[in-house]
């Protein structure tokens, strides 16, 4: 009983594989866009790993007015234009994840992020006020949770580098680049060098990370 099933699975897999190969094997015409740059070193097309291969996926989708409603779709590079601004509801749980608690002013700040009527959906966006509000909430949340004795000591280049990298990894859920960590260190050590309260310096560094796009978008 198992033998025909295996054969059918193999046959199906082979067909799928052929289709995938066929996509990349199409001519570079209006219907088929190859994942290749036009000026390869060997005179032929060179592979651009950021560009997806594509193939003719079907006929136009014409609406009642005779307009192709997907006609304006633009092919994009792999991984681009994928992130979206986190709405208020997501930020609330994200603060909980990052800080272990939701900032005290969160509930009273919903209007700053835009009011969506009940049972309606609106694509979240950002603006000066929501960005500032996010920073303010993040600052208070960071300050309130930075109760460890280490935050009573002013950040140094070494302590800030370690703490910034730790927070970036936790908040952003990825390893930061050296440049990103340097920005955080410079903020804590240099920009706030005149700030007399060490805990506020740490809180600013923390808030800056929680307002960066890696945290405020997903």
């Amino acid at each position, binding site marked *: 009983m198992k033998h025909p099933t295996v054969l059918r699975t193999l046959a199906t897999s082979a067909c799928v594989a052929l289709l995938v190969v066929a996509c990349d094997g199409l001519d570079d015409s209006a219907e088929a866009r190859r994942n290749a740059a036009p000026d390869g070193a060997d005179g032929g097309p060179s592979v651009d790993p950021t560009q997806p291969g594509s193939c003719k996926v079907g006929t136009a989708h014409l609406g009642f007015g005779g307009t192709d409603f997907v006609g304006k779709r633009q092919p994009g590079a792999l*991984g*681009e*234009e*994928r*992130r*979206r*601004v986190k709405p208020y509801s997501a930020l609330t749980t994200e603060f909980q994840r990052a800080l272990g608690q939701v900032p005290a002013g969160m509930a009273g*700040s*919903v*209007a*700053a*992020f*835009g*009011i969506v009527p009940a049972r309606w959906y*609106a694509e979240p*966006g*950002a*603006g*000066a*006020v*929501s*960005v*500032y*509000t996010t*920073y*303010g909430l993040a*600052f*208070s949340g960071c*300050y*309130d949770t930075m109760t460890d004795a280490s935050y009573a000591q002013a950040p140094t280049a070494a302590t800030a580098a370690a703490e910034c990298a730790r927070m970036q990894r936790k908040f952003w859920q990825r390893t930061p*680049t050296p440049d*990103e960590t340097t*920005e*955080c260190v*410079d*903020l804590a050590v240099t*920009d*706030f060098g005149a*700030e007399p*309260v060490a*805990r*506020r310096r740490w*809180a*600013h*560094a923390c*808030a*800056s*990370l929680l*307002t*960066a*796009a*890696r945290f*405020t*978008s997903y």
Partner: protein
Amino acid sequence: MNHLSRRGFIKTLGVSAGALIGTRLGGQNLLGLARAAAPESTCLVVVYLNGGFNAIFSGADALTNTAYGVTANNATALGGVVLDNTLVNAIPMSLRNRVASVGINHGISGHEEAQSKLFMADNVSGPLMLANAIGGTGAIKAAVVGDQMLPNKQMPAPVNNVSLQPITDMKATIEAIAGATPSPNTVDRDGAAKGLVRAQAMSKQTMAKNLRSLATLDQGYASAVATLQKPVQPFSVAEFNAAYNLKGAAIDNFPAKLAAAELMVRSGANFVIAQDEGWDQHDDITGTTVRNMMSSRIAPSLNTFLSRVVEGGSADRNVIVAVFGDFHRSIVGTRKQDGTGTIVPDAGHQANLAAVVIGKTLKNATTGKTDAKIGFPAGTPGIAGFWQLLAAAARVDTNPFGPNPHPTLLA
């Protein structure tokens, strides 16, 4: 703008000199050279009635005793501009000689198309082109109050780094402009500015791959930092709540939107739009519904706004208020009622529009009076002409939309 008039403005509003440093009102001594393309602090405030704008509000005399219940008793002539009393009552006496109506023969009878094209000049945002042309030093030059986007859910691409900023919370906005009450765990404006500069720098890699999907976030960083780097302007929530009879900080009703509009005008914005929903009134064949909406929802706070911002600040500011909607309602016809299929009277969509424009650079004149069938004379300009007029009324150095085809409306 002379120095004495600035002082008069300060006394009138009861604000300190610090309140003015962030705008051109502070003048060159405090600010250095202000990059103003208009000769004084200038702002266009749009009151957009989403769904339609009955001609009784822009040229009622064309309909006297023939349509929408217009009589000699419910309309008032402001020079040659005859408006329904419910709108006239919102206009302070001293401004009634500064009211014009402008014809917009746009040829559009669909809501989405009208809402899209009314705010475009060729393929560029009209509001942002105008805000850019006005210049000035305001951190937020263009704002939509109480909503996230323009009508038809448009978020226009920035023009020369001038972006449209949503203002949805009075308290948060005032804190950005004036600072929050200090406490150990409350952020300070200067610190927030520094932190946001670094946050933006740390976001470069992410932004580079999401130029469109995170565009509002990128613009938000820039506008927030610019706002925070301006000197403090001492506004208070209580002042606005008292003036506009507001209950909270959320900008979720029309009075709150006009309060936010005032805040933005006073903080240096060049364009503000406040929208009101529910003006697609097909069943309103006598005009009674829209008159009630105008008198109850719009007029009280519009009167407050015009009194405080346009009339009260006229010596130092050029604030132009434009009231309009998608299109006029047509002469009453019939339609099949949804669901039942019954034939019912219908106040439909007329493919033209007139806007009421109020401000010190306008006078009582009209190019927006229709005939009795709510049609315009041939040659009445379209949407481009509307923006050309608005830019001329804003007195920009160079009109980015082209020559004004409505010169008779300017004072």
